[in-house]
């Protein structure tokens, strides 16, 4: 879907992005992660040609991006940034309708689309449509930013640290919402962040960058288990790696069917992560948990031994 082939970008003598190759499959959420200044934003902005690449090729659906007019290309991709970039002189509704208006959709269709998106992002029409950006909280503004990026239903979504300026609680809830949205909409998303926890939570495909180069890419679990070098390992949290990995695995992967024994008193949902299960065990001094499904019915059990035991089946 998106292919970067030996792409380099120089600013004068400095090389901001150095010979990177990267493929993002249709419907995949790819996260670029790395310390500040490592070239993540430059990489992202080369995809919609806000920055031109110096060398190499970038393809969208197999076609070179230079074959499109810049504006045409950008209107096919959603773009959300940390500062939201909402137009302060436009209402929320008008901001969201920006790209459809650029694409000359009829007014009724734009109106319907704006309503649909506001509902999707949990923004009530009456409360927010007529508000101006400075009247919104950080989280609300960022929701509007995401709605605006989704407005013309683009296949591709480019997001540059969209949740970077939010408080941790708002950030986590927006991360969850993004995952849910993604499960429903199946966009191809390139997401830039310097926050490894955020990267691990969101990524289908994780790309670690350092000084303009890609040092490792793959599924988050692969990176956690086999970091390519010390840099990746330290970025992944060193001693915290076990917990980070546990956070990625659902309880359902390690639980055993209900045995003949009495049900353990403490319960945990099968969708919860192993990290949450471990935390509960520590907190309640319990060595066994009863795993329940969404309707709170017992479906299995998880023991401490099983939780920390050798990985076999994931």
């Amino acid at each position, binding site marked *: 879907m998106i292919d970067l082939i030996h792409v380099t970008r120089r600013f004068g003598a400095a090389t901001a992005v150095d010979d990177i190759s990267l493929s993002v499959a249709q419907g995949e959420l790819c996260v670029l992660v790395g310390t500040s200044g490592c070239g993540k934003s430059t990489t992202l*902005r080369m995809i*919609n040609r*806000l920055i031109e690449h110096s060398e190499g090729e970038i393809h969208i659906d197999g076609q070179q991006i230079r074959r499109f007019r*810049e*504006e*045409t*290309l*950008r*209107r096919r991709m959603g*773009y959300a*940034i*940390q*500062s*939201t*970039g*909402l*137009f*302060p*002189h*436009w*209402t929320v509704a008008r901001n969201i309708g*920006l*790209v459809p208006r*650029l694409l000359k959709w009829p007014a009724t269709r734009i109106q319907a689309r704006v309503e649909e998106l506001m509902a999707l992002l949990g923004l009530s029409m009456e409360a927010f449509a007529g*508000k*101006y*950006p*400075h*009247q919104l909280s950080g989280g609300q503004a960022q929701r509007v*930013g995401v709605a*605006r990026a989704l407005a013309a239903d683009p296949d591709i979504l*480019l997001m540059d640290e969209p949740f970077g300026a939010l408080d941790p609680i708002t950030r986590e809830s927006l991360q969850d919402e993004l995952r849910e949205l993604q499960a429903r909409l199946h966009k191809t998303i390139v997401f830039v962040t310097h926050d490894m926890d955020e990267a691990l939570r969101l990524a289908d495909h994780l790309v670690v960058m350092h000084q303009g180069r890609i040092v490792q890419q793959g599924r988050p679990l692969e990176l956690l288990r086999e970091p390519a070098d010390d840099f990746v390992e330290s970025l992944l949290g060193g001693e915290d790696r076990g917990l980070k990995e546990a956070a990625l695995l659902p309880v359902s992967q390690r639980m055993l069917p209900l045995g003949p024994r009495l049900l353990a008193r403490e319960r945990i949902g099968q969708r919860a992560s192993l990290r949450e299960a471990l935390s509960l065990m520590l907190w309640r001094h319990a060595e066994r948990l009863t795993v329940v499904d969404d309707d709170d019915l017992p479906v299995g059990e998880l023991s401490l031994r099983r939780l920390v035991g050798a990985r076999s089946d994931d």
Partner: protein
Amino acid sequence: MRPDMPGPNVVLLTLSLVALAAWLGLDTVSLAANRIVPGTGYRVFDVIGVGGALATSLPWLALAGLAWRPARHRLALALTLVVLMLSALPAWLSLSAVTLVDSAQARLGIGAGIWVVLFLQLLAMIELRRRLDLSRLIGWALVLPAVASAGLCLARWLEPLALWQEYRGRSGQFLSAVGEHLLLVGVAVGTSLALGVCLALAMRRWPGVQRAGFGLLNVLQTIPSIALFGLLLAPLAWLSANVDWLAALGVSGIGRAPALLALVGYSLLPMVRNTFVALEAVDAGVIDAARGMGMSRGQVLRQVRLPLAMPVILEGIRITTVQAIGLTAVAALIGAGGLGTFIFQGLGQAAMDLVLLGALPILLLALLVDALLGALTDILRPGGAE
């Protein structure tokens, strides 16, 4: 004093006491037998006696009293009082005219006392408007009673007022002078706005233009206006003598052409500077998003950059216009016409009231433009955004 009582409003207190001193101590009117001879000054008690003078100081003392304990309702009362006192000034002139004037040639001049009091009263109104958090529009509405009172008094009793006489002697001339003045200002500001926006856009695109442009405009700004008019005289005179079509257009060494050139020259710097700064100051994130969403350069400029820069650009227009209104008065020296004509005529004839006939409308025009453009700037701020 109760603990929750605010302390005295020092500004208002000082204003009212100084105004009272000016009212009692300075000449409020002067009377001359005819236009040529100098007049004799009359203080308040010369007109209505000591008892009357003391009676007229009561409102001032009341104002000072209200300023001493400035709770909100007292400030509102103070504002009402100031508005009434402002409206009473024309009445005072009328009373003086009726009491003092005895012949048809006699002329009543407005004395220093009245000017000082008028000025202090306006300051007091501004202070009170701010304390009471009233809008600018209401502030302007508050002068209306005084304007109405002045109109009524002029029509009824102020026949001998020297300023009024000067006006009546040349009312046609006065109107056309106002017209000329506005035309010169309008053309100069309009031209410099168009040029200024183009120049500011060019400066943003090419850094070379930016350095050269600001350098040139800064130099231009430092030349004194009379000198600039003088400098333009020779080349323009030569042009009109040698280029027929320019002469046919009315270009010559003196008159409107050099005046306009100089006015545009002076207006350009504030216009360009404000426009440039305004365009630069637009949030980079907003521009990044606009381009990232697929707006073309033209769309970004027209739909995002210009509207967001508009309040600051308008601020530039306001400063430039107020400045041009003043400079145009000087342009009368080289025969450009306008209200400055009366000022220089009056200076030549030592007729201060004629000078006032030119100077007062210039002042009023400047205030009016300032208020109108200020209001427009407020309106253009979307949803009250910063």
